């Protein structure tokens, strides 16, 4: 059983009377349990729409999505799912602790178990100090953190994170990255939408890149990024003489393409597949 499976998932949005936007076009995904899966793509390529369809917030125009084998249109499919929406806002009049309590109660976590859980999560997302402050006074990054917290309050098996690091400071981003790695170790499935390619490269097992609602690339990150017939050597402290010797050695059986500084290669891959895309 897949954690998430989509079959020809298609979504049209009607704009006005006649026009429509094809936000998602026959998307097929198979996301395994315990996998960290990255959804990439330019703005408006349908990442958030995919998440909403997986969670039943939208109805598919065509095709279907299942979560742990249950159709996304049923409420039971949401039993083990947590979502961090993009740009989350919460009830401004609740404080951090109350927010988590509210969502916990909604998921039927109650009593001392809930209180323990709240403490743990606040610690986890780094908001222990501001737990008694109203959310009206939270900064964007803090809201992102509490959003991450509420997504985990009922200990779901699947987490959908829509740009979890947007607005979070660099240290916080690293925290979130480590958290995702930790979640993976615990056997959770994570679907991550992000524009921070280096982070995606770090944490994701597999990625797919969307463009105009279509999947243009999918695969294991390591495999995608390693060009099997190409090698890049990184050396330091090499003398000019030795460098020439290495070049000579390479030219014996191969051809020296170029020598360059290492780059964040997911970026290259990304630009290669979707570079120059116009936002529709």
């Amino acid at each position: 059983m897949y954690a998430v499976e989509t079959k020809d998932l298609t979504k049209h949005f009607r704009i006005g009377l006649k026009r429509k936007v094809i936000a998602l076009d026959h998307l097929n995904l198979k996301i395994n349990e315990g996998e960290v899966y990255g959804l990439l793509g330019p703005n408006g390529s349908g990442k958030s729409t995919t998440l909403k369809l997986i969670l039943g917030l939208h109805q598919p125009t065509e095709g279907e999505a299942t979560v742990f084998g249950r159709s996304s249109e049923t409420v039971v499919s949401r039993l083990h799912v947590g979502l961090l929406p993009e740009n989350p806002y919460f009830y401004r009049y609740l404080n951090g602790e109350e927010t988590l309590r509210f969502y916990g109660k909604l998921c039927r976590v109650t009593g001392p178990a809930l209180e323990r859980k709240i403490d743990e999560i606040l610690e986890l997302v780094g908001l222990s100090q501001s737990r008694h402050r109203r959310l009206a006074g939270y900064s964007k990054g803090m809201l992102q953190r509490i959003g991450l917290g509420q997504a985990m309050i009922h200990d779901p098996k699947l987490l959908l994170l829509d740009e979890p690091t947007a607005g979070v400071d660099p240290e916080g981003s690293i925290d979130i990255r480590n958290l995702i790695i930790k979640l993976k170790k615990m056997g959770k499935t994570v679907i991550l939408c992000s524009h921070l390619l280096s982070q995606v490269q770090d944490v994701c097992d597999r990625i797919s890149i969307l463009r105009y609602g279509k999947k243009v690339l999918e695969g294991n990150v390591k495999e995608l990024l390693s060009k099997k017939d190409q090698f890049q050597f990184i050396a330091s402290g090499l003398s000019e003489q030795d460098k020439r010797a290495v070049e000579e050695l390479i030219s014996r059986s191969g051809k020296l393409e170029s020598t360059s500084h290492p780059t964040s290669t997911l970026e290259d891959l990304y630009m290669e597949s979707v570079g120059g895309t116009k936002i529709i």
Partner: protein
Amino acid sequence: MSLEAVQPMQEQDSLSFSPARVWVIATNTMTEVIRQKVLYVFILFGLALCGASSFFTQFSFNEELKSIIDTCLAAIKLLTALIAVVGTAMLLPSEIENRTIYTILTKPVYRIEFLLGKVAGMSLLLFFVTIVMSVLFGAVLLLDEKALVSHALQGTSLLQASDPVKQTINAIYAQTRNPNLIKAIFLLYAQAVLLVSMTMMVSTFATSSLFSIIIMLVIYMCAPLATIANEVWKSQPSILGRVGLMFISFCIPDLSSMTLVDDVVAGKHVLMSYVLSTTGYAALYTLVVFALGAFIFQEKEL
């Protein structure tokens, strides 16, 4: 970071309708509306009360009490209706605007639970508001009664009072201790709950809270026509005309049947059977409208 310490929750495989979840959403809704400073209505109500009890003091006791009762019942009607319509109209759009609805509906929560929680929260808040206003109203009425009675007695005791004085006092009591007042307030509350449910239904498809408020305002203004619509319906000869009118009439709740202010002031007795029938009507209407709202909300794209 101590994620290891988190206990895995018990695996759940089914999900039934849960009143507890409805309650969580209802209490949260109440907090939300109260934080919108809705309770300032009590100040408005107090002002209306002061105005009413001071304007007519130069008149006969009957006129004075009438003006207090008129004003209070009208204020209860207006304020509860306003809170019901405006407060409810803001709920869904603000949830969508703030995207809080995403975090709620992606939890294992039925949409109908969410909607019911909203309606129940609003109704509970209105219950509280109605009770507080009624208590204030009752207090002013009793104070006024005390003043009027002692004025009528002019120093003598009730036992020594002459028959005309006793008659006056009984007439005062008939106005101030009128059980029909409670029935009237109860029906005003039933009306407010019906308005909450209707507004919620409208806001499931309306695109903004302003739009819902305008629709509800039109319905509220047309409500007195329900009686006429009913008459016209009966006299409509063609089946087609009857069916057509029935649809129009569906949108117009008979709110005037729940507004007994005039009759109570005029000393009319409100039969219990009338209260029951009207309450039943309001309850059924509320339920039906809620069901419609739930059908639409179920399919709503967020």
